[in-house]
């Protein structure tokens, strides 16, 4: 594929090492454990959904490595851990994976900073799915702070992206230089 460097393209064509499925699984697993941290109050309202972020990263960068099945499975696990309706996050993450794969050719053309807007939109849509499910089940709107998680998630995106890429950078040996 020929990529024309866009105006905001900050990243040089960095060729990353091939991704092993084990690494993808490991990162998803770590994100899930971080999601389980016992938070409450303001920190809970600000907590980004890290599983959604990591799924989104792999969906955009390597859509063949993750598919709908991991998104669905982790969604069910999140539902059980949170004690919420069985399937609400599975539905939301399926939608997220659809959006990620649908834009996976477009988003990498932007710099990490410009990708934030795409990510924010997708995270917001994911939360909207959960909100709609809960409204259908008869719950009240919890308040606008509910969407703060999308904001913090989008802000964290460049950091998460860099962190996930770090082990994939090719190691250059000293003597080769």
């Amino acid at each position, binding site marked *: 594929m020929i990529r024309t460097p866009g105006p905001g393209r900050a990243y040089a064509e960095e060729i990353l090492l091939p991704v092993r499925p084990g690494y993808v699984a490991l990162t998803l697993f770590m994100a899930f454990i971080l999601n389980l941290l016992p938070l409450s109050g303001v920190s809970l309202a600000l907590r980004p959904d890290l599983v959604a972020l990591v799924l989104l990263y792999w969906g955009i960068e390597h859509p063949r490595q993750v598919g709908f099945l991991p998104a669905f499975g982790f969604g069910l696990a999140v539902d059980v851990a949170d004690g919420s309706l069985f399937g609400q996050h599975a539905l939301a993450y*399926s939608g997220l994976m659809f959006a990620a794969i649908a834009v996976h050719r477009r988003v990498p053309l932007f710099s990490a900073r410009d990708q934030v807007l795409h990510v924010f939109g997708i995270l917001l849509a994911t939360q909207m799915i959960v909100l709609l499910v809960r409204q259908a089940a008869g719950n009240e709107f919890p308040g606008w702070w509910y969407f703060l998680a999308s904001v913090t998630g989008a802000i964290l995106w460049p950091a998460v992206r860099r962190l996930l890429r770090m082990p994939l950078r090719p190691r250059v040996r000293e003597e080769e230089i």
Partner: protein
Amino acid sequence: MEHTAPPFFKRGPSLFARLSFFSLLSLVLLYSDARFHYMEQMRRAIAVVLHPLQRLADFPGEVGERVSDFFVTQSSLRRENERLRHENFVNSGLLQTQQALLAENEHLRALLQMRARIERGSLAAEILYSARDPFVRKVVLDKGSSAGVRQGAAVIDSKGLIGQVHRVFPWASEVSLITDRDQAIPVQIVRNGLRAVVFGLGYDGALELRFMPLNADIHNGDLLVTSGIDGTYPPGLPVATVANIEHNAAYPFARITCTPASGVGSHRQALVLGKGEALPDRPPPAEAPKLRKTKPARAQ
């Protein structure tokens, strides 16, 4: 690159087909969970697998707590000790009068040939975390069915009723707080014995006393305790105090909001009460009048 495969390579079903499949699957799961509660077995199985992960995630917090416990100063310990001793003194005084009252009550019940009250066992548990879903009011306790927690048991803290055990897993259990949406608790006003049903509203710090007529004898600051007529909650547990009464002639009922008595956010210990006396069997359906679940107990 790997995603530029020419179309003649097999790539599986289209993106939209996959989305539809998984969306339909999750909608089926959602519907069967919300309407019929079919998913409890599967939920339990997943919860068992997740339990060690949850413990792993709790670990840093526990270590931090232990470290801060270790560096607690002597003066604060002494202050706490003094406070506890004072509380103990006051409580033991109350306990002595209660012992006498209990004996008297038993005696009177024997005289009246009423059934003796069954002693409920209780189980101390620790609140692991509160549910992260903003739509539910739940906490997770560190004791489950292996410790004898049963579904439907009442959970209290030192100030009053917290909620009811909703789901039991082998090593943990979910407690629906009294503020959870449509959590209904039969209560009684201490001042005049008026019975009512208090409902959770789905957000913190507020309960609603529904279906009370405009002229009901309720004042601000009235204490509501469980009436015990449902057989789930033992009688006499503090539930809430009346905070605000709104009389609007346009509605048949007064709008009464209450504040919960227990402090769910403030401490980590809770007491799970055991099963109480068994209810008598339901009368045969042909004779029984049709009762709706949400129908309140009528005021006398």
